[in-house]
């Protein structure tokens, strides 16, 4: 069961990510990103992170991506044009990322070879209660600081997006 779920949603995630990169139209990219996020949410569930999975749904695909779609529609962003700039990125981009991927996976396989396998339900420490407990005891200060960060972000967004009066 685990294997099937994992493979299916991993494939969904990868296909979504690829289509995010390859799609020409921003809306399509956005929707493929949403699919990636939903798939990831399921994987979180498999890893026993219920709360994070729900948060992934609510925050990422429910709010952030809606914001993206909203902005894309608002600006009526069309398909992008080609440009000759960024030669370095164009030519080195693919090999670089490939090398990065190879290195990363080698490191992972080296260091994680003896790690325990993932069984659904083996780790039940990801419920809202546990996360909330940690969040409000050991991580209280970072939590508060994050709230301040969000406040600042709100103010900045308002200031930026306001039509300048002139």
């Amino acid at each position: 069961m685990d294997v099937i779920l994992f493979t299916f949603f991993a494939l969904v995630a990868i296909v979504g990510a690829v289509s995010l990169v390859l799609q020409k139209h921003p809306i399509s990219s956005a929707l493929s990103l949403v699919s990636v996020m939903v798939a990831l949410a399921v994987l979180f569930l498999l890893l026993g992170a219920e709360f994070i999975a729900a948060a992934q749904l609510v925050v990422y695909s429910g709010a952030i991506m809606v914001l993206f779609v909203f902005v894309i529609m608002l600006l009526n962003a069309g398909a992008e044009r080609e440009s000759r700039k960024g030669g370095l990125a164009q030519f080195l981009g693919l090999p670089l990322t490939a090398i990065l991927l190879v290195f990363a996976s080698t490191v992972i396989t080296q260091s994680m070879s003896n790690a325990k396998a993932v069984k659904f339900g083996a780790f039940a420490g990801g419920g809202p209660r546990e996360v909330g407990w940690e969040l409000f005891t050991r991580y209280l200060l970072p939590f508060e600081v994050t709230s301040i960060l969000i406040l600042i972000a709100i103010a900045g967004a308002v200031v930026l997006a306001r039509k300048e009066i002139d």
Partner: protein
Amino acid sequence: MDFILLSILKTAIAAPVLLGTLAYLVWIERKVLAHVQLRMGPSRVGPHGLLQPIADAIKLLTKEDFIPSYVNHFYYWLAPWLALMFAVTAISVLPVGPVIELFGVKTNMGQADISIGLLLILGLTGMGVYGIALAGWSSNNKYSLLGGLRSSAQMVSYELPMALAIASPLLIVNSLNLREIVNGQAGYVFGIIPNWNAIGGLQIFSFLIYLICAFAETNRIPFDLPEAENELVSGYNTEYSSMKFAAFFMAEYANIITACSVATTLFLGGWHPIIPNELGGQFIPTLLCLFFAGVLFYHALNPARPSDRISMGVIGLVIAGLGLVFQVPVVKELAQPLFWFASKAGFLIFVFIWVRGTVPRFRYDQLMRFAWLVLFPAALLNLLFTAFVVAAKSN
């Protein structure tokens, strides 16, 4: 018995019931609106138009599926089903009754019983906006686009006060699992006042806020800006016809059902009776049914129309029989919770229709200001207050 098989069985039971409810909700709404406006409402197809939904279904299925030439086909096709999918999926985590034992199988009355049910519902309803937004964008029509934009902005804005309003009862019952939430509201204050969050839990404010937000989330009057007929010629679904249109329609009603059921679960104590069973709460369903049956029989005896003589009588008999079912020993365990849940949710749905019949529509800026400057602070204050109360109680 196996988990998967059980789930499939439940779904097999639940899905047709849900579809039937969706279909007849339309009939109910039209009837109620009609009587609000002193009309008859659908009355031609079948007795009192009772067969109207079926006729509508046939019509929608057989209509020509007209696709404008300039739309973005894929998303145009995707949008309605996306909307319907999320709307219906959200219902699957709602428990309509306690854990019961049937044929030696212990199971809870509801599809899935997960520890983050409420969050899941929030997430799915949040996803619901994609359908509308996509529909608006893909049909490549400025009215639809405006509708889509409006609905996405509106939904994002109203999700905040909604979540805050939901949070305060959660503080009291202190769980995200819907069944535990309902069980947390069991019991009666002074043995008579139901210990529901909206009444015994003194969460009436968050209940109202939630209800208002639910109106907005489901794009209902007075917040139906995305489909404002007289501004946007019915907004995002302007370009849709036949089954796709029906999908949007069903999605809307499914959302209403979800919202009302969530409200019932969170604030109105789910399936718990309004009067303790030992004080005769268990007889209320039967009595109600018998009362309605009596009314119908009266109409059958002195009918307004000749056809009533039969139809009213038959319906009356059915209802009376239903009333007696609530006292059958085994079925009772299953039927009474269902009755209470359904009646509470049904009442809320009636409120939805009622409001639609009576309240005018907001202006868009009013809508946004209302969300951010009234509901949001109110919900925050309520949450703060509740937190203080809970903290004071806990020590």
